[in-house]
């Protein structure tokens, strides 16, 4: 091989070896341990903070036992505490941190109960124009233990 080509290929070889070396230094250690990805990322995602505690956290201690037992035996038992009261894991961890008050507007209840064509017909729905004289729903209905008037 001619000397100038030798030199060119030596340069190329140096570049390739340099690349391999840099690659070895930079690719994260956990890459490829479980598959073609950074193994550590699974743990990072698992450690993401939880924001919604489950209803048991509200009732299992003595904190909200009474309201929990009323709620858990009534018609709204499928509506979890945090669906109305907001994410409460912080409050569970530290009772001094209060979640914002529950939304008790007609529109909020209406998200489920205003008459809508696409809802399953058996689901309890009201016409907001004619029902309840624009009063707040909780005026007549206990949200923790709803009943039909």
């Amino acid at each position, binding site marked *: 091989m001619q000397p*100038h*080509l030798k*030199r060119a290929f030596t340069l190329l070889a140096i570049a390739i070896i340099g690349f391999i070396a840099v690659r070895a230094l930079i690719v994260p250690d956990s890459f490829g341990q479980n598959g073609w990805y950074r193994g550590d990322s699974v743990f990072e995602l698992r450690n993401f903070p939880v924001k919604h505690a489950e209803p048991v956290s509200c009732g299992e201690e003595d904190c909200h036992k009474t309201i929990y037992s009323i709620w858990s035996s009534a018609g709204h038992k499928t509506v979890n505490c945090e669906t109305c009261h907001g994410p409460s894991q912080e409050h569970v961890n530290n009772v001094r941190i209060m979640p914002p008050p529950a939304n008790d507007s007609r529109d909020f209840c209406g998200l489920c109960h205003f008459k809508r064509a696409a809802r399953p017909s058996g689901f309890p729905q009201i016409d907001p124009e004619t029902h309840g004289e624009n009063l707040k729903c909780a005026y007549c209905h206990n949200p923790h233990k709803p009943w039909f008037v």
Partner: protein
Amino acid sequence: MESLIWGYIYPNEAEIQWSILIVLYPYITGLVAGAFIASSLYHVFGKKEIKPVARFALLTALSFLLVATLPLVTHLGHPERGIEIMFTPHLTSAMSGFGYIYSFYLIVVVLEIWLSFREDIVKMALNSRGWKELLYSGLALFSYDISEKALHDDEKFAKKLAIIGIPSAAFLHGYVGFIFGGIKANPWWSTPLMPLIFLMSAIVSGIALLILLYLASMKLRKHAIDHKCLHSLAHYLWIFLILDVTLELLEVISMKYESLEEIEIINRLLSDKIATTFYGVQLGLGIFVPFVLLLLVGIMKNRETLKMIMISISSVLVVIGVFAMRWNVVIGGQEISKSLSGTLTYVPVFFSQEGVLPAIIILVIPFIILFVITRILPPWKDMEEKV
């Protein structure tokens, strides 16, 4: 904003993800591949009439190749992580090959240029002083053998390299087509014809650009134009235009003929969203008009000036038409919702990371690079001897 949306699009589709920069990327790599293949018409297939532009075509390919990564990297959410594509390429992804294919091709082009300019480089190194001597000696890798035998061996090696170069140029660009063609989620992209369409339009745009740059440089240098070379390029442009339009029409016709689930939204895309850029610019101005003009050029006798004007007009139209083709693929594909029941509209922004301004800047850079390179490595030696 709402009025830009028709029907139902998935809520996450409100933003167009691949903007004008991603239109630019296949456009630029297409020009690279086209210019390289044009140069190999001489280097590999021995088409002597192309010789005047063969070296210039290589330099054009390099100038555009050097900026090919720019639109991609600029568009990334994390440009600093872009190198991961070379460190941990996920081989099931059509995109993962980019780093290696690009690097391999860059090496081939640089070697090819180096070998075909080596004689000039060595002569310049020996005949100049000061920083110029240092520059050219460095480029010669401080090895000054330009004996007849050495040059002959170089030429043989360069030919082998060009033979590798053609498939890698085809691969570099065909695979860009596969990046789109392999996306089953998008009915406008998903077709096995896509790599071929991209390749043909690449060759077409590359030859057209080469013609324009050749004419422009001859004008600038006040040199006579080699009409034989020009007509030969125009001839190849015409042939590849036919292949290109056949494939592009085949794609649309088979989509319409098969009329699968997505036909309604495809029809809406073609008749409403991209009607002008598809039928008007891509097919009409970009293919039909140049096709007719080049046909006339082929038939006409003498009248060189008129022919030259017609070839230049065709080339300008082809370069614009191929840009419209990239636009119709990249933007058009994103203007239909994957819910197949709605469309949205891309509104380009001027000043932003992914706006029109960076796109223009990126498109201007290769011309500056080309200007500089032709100063360092004048590709016209052969011609000056002739003139």
